[in-house]
């Protein structure tokens, strides 16, 4: 039995690592996900086998209880995951992440209560630490969920201060509980720790601005990984440590990539998140050249290469399907159409790509920042739909700009730039975009979907 469990865990680990490697290839990612599921099932079965080998008898009642819990959980998870639209994916991922955090917190709470008398200081640190982290992840993810759903917009002016106070209180209670100085009864310490951890999670997530959501989600994702690894150390279970570290690494890498793509330090996202730099570049009088749907349509038909830069505005207007239609019409004129996506377009890493995939746009036609900029340099028309900050040229040429240094999509390198935008208003970072006044830039003030539909109608009539 022990051997079985041992090799079961080993096989599961192999499945997980190979699965994650396949997840990096668009063609094989679905198979990779299948391997991850197999690995998970195998790991749970091995855990049963391990327990049987230790006790010698088969505790049927427990096995039935656990299996039914797992079956109910699987059913509920499936139900929840299918009840969300693809546009709401970031909310769903945060929600599930919060569940993971809560699960970890409950497990460490059980550990503390069941073995209260016989805990040494090391296990106490681990358990209380993961109770704290688990509850922070839980409440933080729930706040992220509500923020992404647009149900929570209030910003507290003293948010950062509350964040530090709650964090500090958590550490005091933790220290007090560990030292057994008996200021409080141990149960009261646990209750207080839980309350302050939950509060800390709330303030921690609430301080992050809407545009910085991709960083917050990555950090919370990484935290559940760290939690899993810590619990693995407590249970002396290698596979938990392995996977926890793996997920932690995912969170870490994505956090770094996202904050790099936004040119914002991680510290700034969480502590200075609310304060938008007061120093703004001088508002210039921009010479705006307006254009019409029919002239955009003719520009597009004469072009050999067209680059489309979609922003979150496109998703809000639900114009992805119209984008595909436009692309198919242009392909008939032998025009090559590629989509260029900035890493922080959307509300979580890779969000925009999923939205385009939902509209059946093949992934070969979607380029990342680097390939995209090369493509734009050769293109005849660069078509910006609902994007603003990621194409703001002040990030490149104006040292006083708050976003100076942020890597942008270099739309100006194209022969001609066409922008569909509802108005000349500033983007999320609230900075004027000098691109709109450039000589080769044409503006079409319209809702993304309606504007695209007008262009499509014009193209069809040709």
């Amino acid at each position: 039995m022990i051997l079985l469990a041992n090799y079961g865990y080993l096989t599961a680990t192999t499945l997980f690592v190979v699965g994650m490697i396949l997840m990096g290839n668009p063609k094989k990612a679905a198979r990779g996900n299948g391997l991850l599921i197999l690995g998970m099932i195998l790991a749970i079965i091995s855990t049963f086998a391990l327990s049987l080998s230790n006790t010698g008898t088969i505790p049927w009642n427990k096995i039935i209880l656990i299996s039914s819990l797992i079956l109910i959980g699987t059913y509920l998870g499936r139900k929840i995951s299918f009840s969300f639209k693809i546009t709401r994916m970031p909310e769903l991922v945060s929600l599930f992440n919060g569940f993971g955090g809560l699960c970890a917190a409950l497990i460490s709470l059980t550990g503390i209560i069941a073995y209260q008398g016989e805990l040494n200081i090391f296990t106490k640190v681990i358990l209380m630490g993961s109770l704290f982290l688990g509850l922070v992840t839980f409440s933080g993810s729930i706040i992220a969920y509500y923020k992404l759903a647009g149900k929570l917009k209030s910003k507290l002016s003293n948010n950062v201060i509350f964040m530090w106070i709650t964090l500090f209180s958590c550490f005091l209670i933790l220290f007090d509980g560990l030292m057994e100085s008996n200021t409080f009864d141990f149960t009261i310490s646990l209750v207080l720790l839980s309350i302050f951890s939950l509060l800390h999670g709330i303030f921690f997530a609430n301080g992050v601005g809407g545009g910085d959501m991709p960083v917050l989600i990555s950090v919370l994702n990484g935290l559940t990984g760290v939690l899993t690894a810590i619990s693995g150390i407590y249970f002396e279970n290698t596979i938990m440590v392995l996977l926890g570290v793996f997920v932690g690494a995912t969170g870490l890498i994505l956090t770094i990539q996202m904050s790099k793509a936004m040119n914002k330090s991680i510290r700034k996202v969480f502590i200075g998140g609310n304060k938008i730099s007061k120093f703004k570049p001088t508002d210039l009088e921009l010479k705006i050249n307006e254009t019409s749907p029919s002239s955009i349509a003719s520009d597009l038909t004469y072009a050999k290469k067209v680059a489309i830069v979609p922003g979150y505005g496109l998703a809000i207007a639900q114009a992805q399907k119209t984008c595909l239609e436009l692309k198919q019409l242009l392909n008939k004129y032998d025009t090559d159409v590629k989509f260029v996506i900035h890493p922080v377009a959307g509300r979580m890493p890779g969000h925009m790509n999923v939205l385009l995939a939902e509209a059946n746009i093949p992934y070969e036609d979607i380029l990342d920042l680097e390939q995209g900029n090369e493509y734009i340099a050769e293109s005849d028309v660069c078509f910006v739909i609902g994007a603003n900050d990621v194409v703001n040229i002040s990030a490149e040429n104006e040292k006083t700009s708050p976003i100076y240094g942020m890597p942008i999509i270099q739309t100006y390198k194209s022969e001609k730039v066409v922008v569909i935008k509802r108005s000349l208003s500033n983007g999320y970072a609230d900075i004027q975009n000098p691109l709109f006044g450039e000589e080769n830039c044409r503006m079409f003030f319209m809702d993304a979907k309606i504007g695209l539909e007008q262009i499509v109608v014009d193209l069809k009539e040709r």
Partner: protein
Amino acid sequence: MENVFSLSPIDGLYTILLCVLVGIEVIRNVPAILHTPLMSGSNAISGIIIIGGVIQLLENDLGLNFTTIISCFGVLIGTINVSGGFFVTHRMLKMFKSSKN
């Protein structure tokens, strides 16, 4: 529970070190278009933490007490995280299509 998998601290550190390196290497090679499924997938596998809950339930006496109830709730919530994460990942990956087919 006697555990056959317990590692000596130094073995554990080696494991963690190698895992971090492999993890970073694997994740770095994932293209930006797959970042969302990657996240929901890794979210699902971090739910391996339910193993801890399962161990606790197998190990402790099943009386109708506070610890049993929170353990059960933990396993249930954890499984929702695991299965939900995998189903969502599957749903998203199904949409990624190549122009060749």
